[in-house]
Every structure is written in C-alpha cells, then in structure tokens.
C-alpha cells in the first residue's frame, strides 16, 4: 500500500477522486488481502459479495479510487471482478452492464458480427 499517496489524499483539500465512503472500502482491503491471501475460496466469496452489493457504478468508483491510490492489488482485483462479470455473456448483457448503446450504422453491426463470429462462440444464456 502506498502510504505516501494516502497521505497526499488526506492532505488534498479539493479531492474529487475519492469519496470518503469509497476510501473506507478500499483502505481496509490490504489487510483483508493479507489475511485471505492464502485462501482463494474466500476471495471468490468476497468477489461474489462485491458484485451483489455493489452496483456497477460503485465498482467504477472503487476502480478509480484504487487507481488514484496506486493500489495495484486492489485495481487488479476489481478489474478481474468486472472481467469475470462479463465473461461469456451476450453482447446485450455486456452493453447493459456497461451502460452502452450501440452507435453503429445499420448493417455495420451485422458486418462486425460476421467478421468476428469466431469470438462469439460459446456464450452463456442471458
């Protein structure tokens, strides 16, 4: 954990990157990380918990906080959580998850679908 960055955060008066709520989630993470480092199952459970309780928007804030605090393990953990959440899911599911809308020209999307058909094999049911 980079303590100098944390100190800087507390010293910064005009800090929009990290709200207090998020900081309280992220900062205890290293302790949890150390405690359950050897136990992957618990990490998995924590991940499931995170996904259920934390909206995609909150997860975004967590990622940004981890990035700002230069906390690599937390950043990796959150990013991996997002990746696991969208793995093997359909295009529509992922769009909804990210809050995206298709802005392709009509026909462009079909073209891409055909070209990258091999990458859509084996997708889960929604």
């Amino acid at each position, binding site marked *: 954990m980079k303590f100098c960055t944390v100190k800087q955060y507390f010293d910064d008066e005009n800090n929009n990157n990290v709200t207090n709520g998020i900081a309280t989630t992220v900062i205890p993470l290293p302790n949890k990380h150390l405690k359950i480092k050897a136990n992957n199952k618990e990490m998995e459970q924590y991940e499931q918990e995170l996904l259920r309780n934390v909206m995609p928007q909150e*997860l975004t804030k967590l990622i940004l906080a981890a990035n700002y605090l230069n906390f690599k393990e937390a950043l990796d953990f959150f*990013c991996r959580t997002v*990746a696991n959440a969208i793995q093997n899911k359909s295009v529509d599911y*992922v*769009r909804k998850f*990210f*809050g995206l809308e*298709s802005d392709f020209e009509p026909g462009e999307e079909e073209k*891409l679908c055909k070209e990258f058909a091999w990458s859509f094999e084996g997708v889960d049911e929604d």
Partner: protein
Amino acid sequence: MEPEGSTKSKRKRKRVELEVSPEEHVHADAAVDRISNLPDSILCHILSFLPTKEAVATSILSSSWNSLWTLVPALDLDSQSHFFPCKTVVILELWNGIAVDPPSSFEFPSLKDLRLVHVFFRNGDCVQRLLSGCSVLQDLKLCSDSRSGLIRFDIRVPTLKYLCLQFLTFKPSLPDYKLAICAPALECSHFDGDLGHVVFLEKLANLVEAGVWIDPFVCTREAWTKGYQIGYGDRVFRLLKALNKAKSLTLYPGNKQCVDFGSIYPSRFKNLVRLNFTLQKSNWHVLQALLLVSPNLEVLVIDKLYSRKNQLCSMEPFDGPGYVSSQLTTFRFNQYKGSKYEVEFVKYILKEARVLKTATISVCDTALKESVIEEVSTFPRSSKTCLLTVEVLH
C-alpha cells in the same frame, strides 16, 4: 381492449417506478459513473483479464469499443486456433515481448500492413510461417534485436512493396544474423542498425527509394568483435549493390575506418537521381566512390555527422570530372565548417557541375556565415545560372 389497457397501465406503473428507483436516479445524473467512461488504460486492464477471444468480441459493443481490444498489451496466443484466422485484419502491430509461434495453417488473408516490433520468435522459421499466411502483404516493418531468437531467417513475400528493417545488438552479442530476402516487387527498402548478413535473392527491379543507416558499432580491440569487423565493408557494399536500382538513396555507411572497407561499389547506380549522404571524417572515400558510379544524379545533399572519436580518413584527390554527374542541378552541404576537405569538395562540385541551379551551404554558427560567403563566392563556377546561398541552420 383489456390486454392493451393492462399493458398500458403496466407501462405507466413501470415509468413511475423508474422515476423513483435509485438506480435510475444515479443513471440520470452521473453519466461519468458508468464503467465505460473509465479511461482507456483501465478498460484495457479489464480486457486483459479476459481470454483474447472475448476481448476481441468487445469490438462490437459500440464504435468507441471497436478497437479497444487491440490496445491490450498481452495477447493470449495459446488460443491460436481462435486468434489467427482473422479474416479481415488489414493492419497488425505486435510489439514488446509477445512471443510469435504461428501454427502452419494460419492465415491473414486481408493483412496489408504488418509491424513486428521487438517480438520474440521461437525460431527463425516462425517469421516466414507468419509471412506465408499473408497473401496480400504490402508493408512490413520488422524491428528486432539480439534477444529476439532470430539467427537465420527468411523474408519471402512476393507482394511486398515496402520493407523496413531495424536491428539492435546488445553487448556482448554480435549482429550475427543471416537474412535472406525475396521480395521482387519491393519499391521502398529501409535498413537501420547493426548489419549482419543480408542477402536479396531476387533483383529489386521496381525499387524507387532506399535508405541505409548503419549504426556506429562500438569498435573495440576486444577479440569477440574481431569476427564482426572482418567483412564489415563487404556486408555493407553487398547490401548497397542489391539496392542499386534505387532512384533515391539515403545513406550513412557507418563510421568504420576506411581500412575496413573492402571493394567499393562493384555496380553502377544508373537510376539514382537523389542522394542524401551522411558524412563523417572516416567515410569521404565512400561518398566519392558512390558519386563516381551515379552518372544521372540530380540532387546531392550532404549532412555532416562528426563524432570526436572519429579518425580522419584521407579523401582521394579528385582526378578528373567524373565524380560529378553532368545532370546535377541541386547541391546542399549542411553543417559546413570550412575544413580542408570540405573546401576541396565544394570547390570541385561548383567547378564541375555544369547545369547546377542551386547550391546551398548551411553553417551552424552565425559568426561563420560571413567568412564562408566571402570564401565560397571566390570559387569558380561552371554554371552561370547557379544560385549560391549560405544560410545559418542550428
């Protein structure tokens, strides 16, 4: 009526729900909170945890996601059967640390532009195996170094028009690679770095532009460099011979002393119209020899690159007019200092170039400008219409 009515009321209810739900509330006011608005570097970090196949699939999410997957630094090449049959890729750039080992059946049928920058190859065959799958490849850039695993390899691409090769060697390795190139359609060829054994198997009849920049190899008296030093000159001139159909040539033949250059330019550069030569104290004779075999040269640009360690190599006296093409119209000498050989050279050009239109001498030092103008304007000029300029360029 009933089904419609119920649907209507359901919809109405839903709308109310949406207004109240906290989820919708957040969506409405904080677009910045959406994951997709995270910076590209973080989104790529997320994608790097996905198998390549899935990362590629994100290209269909929206237009801004279309090429995000290509920024992911590590490609999962273990899933070769998925990744390699990429039917529509037109430009592919692989760089830094990726290991390339394509299966023998793979293809990139639309690939026109391939850039391999400091990637690792399992063995020399991997290069040609990769290239064999690119039936319409036109542009190839290969930046390699002594860690890449390339010792003996081929580049055989009948459609290739543009080739850019760069080799770096890290001590204590020597540039000991052997490369055979078969690219008869080549129009532009560039080489930069430490020259090993490079052979062109087919004549480059369509060559328009060539560039050769031989890095100054740190020449020491150590025994392990001896092997490289022997034959250095031959390697340089063998490469240049292969490029002798070029219309335009940019050349820096390195800083090895003249004693290491073997026989120079066994062939003529009949098509050469433009020469840009980087001069050092040790390669005057290379410049002279090249001018001797370029009878149709129209533009000559000299750039000086002096280093302190450079030993002076004597310039051959110009015996007769043959060193300057009768077609020369443009002459430029950069970083002119007025040294003995420079004066002799400029004098010679001005005297012999009968159709010279512009001669430009640029100096680095403003204080030098006046004295240079004074001196150079006294040199006899055979072209009455020649415009002589002395300028200051830092």
